C-alpha cells in the first residue's frame, strides 16, 4: 500500500473508532448492522464450532475479516454449505442438531 492509501485507511479507521468511543461517552450503544444471519428456524451453536475449529478459525466461515475494511458475507450460509463441511469432517448431520 502507498502511504496515501495508508493514511486514508487509517483516518477511516480512526473515524470508526471514534464512533465506538462516542457510543461509550453518550451511553448509547452502537447499532451494528448484522451481516451474518441465519433464519429463525436454525439454531447455530457457535461454541461447538469454535471449540472444534479453534480460535483462529473465524476465517473458515466469515472470510478474512482482518483484511476487510467493512465486513461482508463470503459464504452462502445455506444449509447445503453447512452440510458439506459436516460431511467432509464426518461430523453429525442429524436434523435435530440444528432444527428443534
Amino acid at each position, binding site marked *: 500500500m502507498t502511504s496515501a492509501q495508508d493514511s486514508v485507511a487509517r483516518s477511516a479507521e480512526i473515524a470508526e473508532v471514534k464512533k465506538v468511543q462516542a457510543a461509550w461517552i453518550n451511553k448509547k*450503544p452502537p447499532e451494528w448492522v448484522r451481516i451474518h444471519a441465519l*433464519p*429463525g428456524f436454525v*439454531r447455530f451453536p457457535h*461454541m461447538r464450532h469454535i*471449540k472444534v475449529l479453534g480460535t483462529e478459525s473465524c476465517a473458515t466461515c466469515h472470510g478474512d475479516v482482518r483484511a476487510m475494511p467493512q465486513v461482508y458475507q463470503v459464504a452462502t450460509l445455506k444449509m447445503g454449505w453447512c452440510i458439506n463441511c459436516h460431511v467432509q469432517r464426518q461430523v453429525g448431520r442429524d436434523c435435530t442438531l440444528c*432444527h428443534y
Partner: protein
Amino acid sequence: MDRRRFLKVLGATSGGAAALSACGIGPEPTEHLVPYVVPPEDQVPGTATYYATTCRECAAGCGLHAKVREGRVIKLEGNPESPINEGRLCSRGQAALQGLYNPDRVTEPMARGPNGEWQKLSWDDAVGRLAGKVKEARGRGIVFLTGLETGSFGELVDAWVKEVGGRHVTHEAFALEALREGNRRAFGSAAVPLYDFARARYIVSFGADFMETWLSPVGYQNGFTHAHSFDGDRDTSMAKFVFVGPRLSLTGMSADEWIAAQPGSEALLALAMAQVILAGRLAPAPADAARLERLLPTPQRVAPVVGIAAPEIERLAREFAASQGGLAVGGGVATQYGDGADRVVAAVNILNYVAGQVGKTVRFGPNHAIADAGTFRQLTDLVADMAAGKVDLLLVHGANPGHTLPAGFSQALGKVGFKVSFSSYWDETAAASDLVLPDLHPLEQWGDARPRVGIHALQQPVMQPVFPNTTHAGDVLLRVSGKAGTFKDYLQDRWKELHQRVGKGRDFADFWTDALQHGGVYGEAPNQPVRLDPGIGQLLGEVASAGSGATGESLLIVFPSLALHDGRGANKPWLQELPDPVSKITWHAWVEVHPETAAKWQLANGDILLLKSPHGAVRAPVWITPGIRPDVLAVPTGQGHKAYGRYARDRSFNAFELLSDTPADFGGRAFAVRVSVVKTGDHRRLATVEGDAREQGQGIIEVLSLAQARELKSGAHRFEEREAPQYAEEALKAWAEAQHQKASLGDYAGTAPRWGMAIDLSKCTGCSACVTACYAENNLATVGEELVVRRRQMSWLRIERYYTADADGRRVGAVVNPMLCQQCGNAPCEPVCPVYAAYHTPDGLNGQVYNRCVGTRYCANNCPYKVRYFNWFNFAEPGGEWESWPDPLNMLLNPDVTVREKGVMEKCTFCVQRIRGAQNRARLEDRSVRDGDITPACAQACPSEAIVFGDLRDRSSLVARLAADPRGYHVHTELNTKPAITYLARVVHGAAGRA
C-alpha cells in the same frame, strides 16, 4: 419451479409478502445487533442465570429456582435445597409465571373518581390520599385484611396497624380450622404438626387431600412416594395407603383401598380402630391412653353407621398397629362438613396416639404456619363489624373475600368508609374498592416466609418489575407512616435479628449472601412431646351422641380444586387448561354424580343441574363418575369469578355461593351443604380431554399385587412382549434385516446414545405437575375452552386416568399413567411423512423438524398413542383470534424452543433443547454427557420422582436399570412400535383390580 418454492409462493400470494422472508428465501429485513453499553451483572445473553426464591402461590412455601434469561424469568423450578419441596414443584407453582406476566394486571395506582369511574393517579398522590384517610379514620375502625403472612411483611403490617390503632385480620379460605381445633381438643395445642409421610409404614387419610391443597402438597407427595412406592431393592414392605372419604379425590386415587364411609362418620371409624388397638394391646400406647379404652366405641357399634363391616374395621386397625409406623391424617377441607368436623381430627389424633406414633410420624415441634391464619369466624366477625358501620378504613392484601365470601362480604363492603386494595389484579375485592395500590408480584419483590418452624425461606426479586409503576406494598406502608428506608431494609433488619440467633460465627454479609444463594436458612425444629388433653373424655362423649352426622340424598360437598385452589388460579390459562386430575375437565366446574344416581335421575354428562342451597343457587354441568358415593354430590372451588381478568371472569359457577356464611362450631367454614337438585333441561359440552374412563382391556396400565411384585426376579419379564402372529413372521424378519442395514449408514453407524425414559406407575399419582412444567418449558399454546371441546388441546403430555373395579364391581379405584410421545424405535409416524419432517434421529429420538413440516397430518393419523398435535390455528399471532400469549404473557416464552406456527405438527421432544444444551456443554468441557446431566421438564417437576430420563445404551444409567426391571412393560407392544419409554407396573396391596 420446484415443489417447495411453488408452495411458498402460494402462501405468499394468499398470506402477504412477510411470509417469504421468514422462510429464509429472498432478502431478509436488516437486523441490528445492539449490545449493552454496561452489561448487567450476572446476565449473559444466551445463557440462563438462576435465582433462589420462595413460591407464594399457597401456604406451603416451597423453594424456587427461577430461570432468568436476558433479564426476565422464563421458568420456575423447585429448589433442591429446600426441605419443603426437595427440588420439585407443583402446577400452581409453575403457573406463578402467568401471574407475573398476566395481561390483566393492575399497572398503576387507581382511584375511584366522583362518578365511580377509575382514574389513574401518581404514587405521590396515592400515598398522600391513603395517609389522609388513615388520619381521618383513626379511632373509627381501621382494619388490615391480609392472607397468611408468616414473615417480615406480616410483622410490618402488625406494627403498622398498631401504630394507627387498628387491627390485622388474616384470611385463608382453606385455613384448616377443623385440623387446628381438633389438635387443640386432643392435645391442648392448636398447632399443626409435621406429618412424616416418608417414615410411615401404613397411611390412612380421613379425607385429607395431602397431594392437592392440604398443608404442603409437594413435600407430602414426595414423602408419600418414598413410603408407598415399590422399590425392588430395599425391604419391599411398601406402605399401604387407605383413603377414607365420600369422594375419590386425586389423593384417594393412589390408595390401595378406598373406604367410602358415610360422610360425618369418619370420627367413629377412627375411634373404633383405636379401640381395637387399645383393647388388643396391639401397639405400645402411652400410659395416659389406657383410660380411653372404655370410652371408645367398638367396631360392632359403629359399623352400621360407617357403612362397612366390623371385621373390616378390625382388620384395618390390626394392619395399622402391626405396621409399627402408622400415620393417620385428617382435617382436609372436603371433610370439613360442618359442626363437629374438629371431632374427626381429634379422633384421628387418638388413633395415632394409641398406636404410639405421636412423636414419630406425627411430630409437634416443626409446626406448620397455617395454624396462625385467621379463622373463618374471625372473618365473619369482621364482616359483621363492617356491616354495622364499625370499619372506616379497610385495607386488603393477598386475600379475595369478594370471591370466597361473595354475598356477605360484598354487602358489608358497602358500609365501609374507604376501601384500599393492594392487589396486583382486578379481583372482586379490588373492583369493589376505592383505591388500588398495585403490589409487586412475589417474583419481583423482597420478602420472606416461615412456612414451618425451623424454616426461614427468603424471597428475592428475580427481575425488574414488569410494570415499573407498581410498588412493594411494604414500601407503601413505610412511606405512609413516614418511615425512612425501603421494605428491603426492613427485611434485612429482621434477618439481622435472625443472624444473631442462628448465624453465629459469620458476619452478616456472608450470612445474607448464603441465604440468598440457598433460598433461606433451613433448620431442624426439635420435637415437642404432647399429652392427651384432659377434656378428651368429653369429646368422646360428644362423638358418641352426635350420631352419624350428614345423611340423606342431597348432600353436596365442596372440595378444593387442585389447579384453581380457592379461586386464585383462575386468571392463569395454564391452570384453566390443566385437566383436573380426577375429572379431566378444563375451563369449567362440574358436579360429580354417581352412575346409579345419574341413572335414577336420567342424567347424561353435561346436563345442567340447578343446585340450590339455603344460601345460594348455581347451575352446574353433570360429570358422571364411579368415584363418589351414590348419595353425595361434589363440586370444585375456583370458578365463577365476577372479575379477575379475561381468563377468570364470567366463567362457570362459584361453589362458595352455596356455602353458609355462618361459621361452624369449630370456628371454620362448613364445606358441605344440603341442596335441592333440579334438572334445567339445558346441556353443555364438557371441555374434557378424556375419551373413555375405562381401559377396555387394552393393557395400557399394568397393575400387580404386592405379592406378585415381590415374587418378580431380576432379569425376568413379567409382561412378555406379545408373540407376533404367524402371518407376520416373514414380514418381521425382513423388517429386522432392513433395520440392521440402515443402522450401518452415516450417522446411524456410530455409537450414539439412545434417549429413553422410565416411568414408575407405583410412584405417579396423577397430580399433573409434569403437564404444566411441559407447557412452561416448551411454549405450549393454551387454546381455550371452545377448542378443548373440539379436542384441539396442545398438551404434549397428558395424564390418563382409568377407573378400576374388582370382580364384583365393588371397590372402585383408579389408575393413572402419563402418556407422551413414546419416541418409538419403529415409529408408525415416520414412514408416512412425505417430507421427512418426522424421522428417527441417530440418538433415538423421533425428530420433528418444524420447518420441513407441510401439515399433511398423516403422522398424527398413524400414531397409535395419539400423542401428536397439530397447530390448526396461529396461536402466536399478536392480536389474533386464538392468541395464547397476549402481551406481556409472551415474556415467559422459552427462547430455546421454537414457537410453532399454524400448519405445523408438534409433539414431545424429550426436551431436545435440554439434550442439545447438555451435549454442547459437555463438548466444551471435553467430556461425554453423564447420567443425570439431562433432565426433561416433566421429570424435574414431578413431586413423586416418577419419571427418569437418560441414555438406555449406558448400562450404568438409572434409566437402563429401570428399563430392565421385571415390572417394566411397554404400551401397545403388539403393534411392534418399540417405544423408548418403559412403564413400571403399579403395585397395590391386595388383589389388582382391572378396568
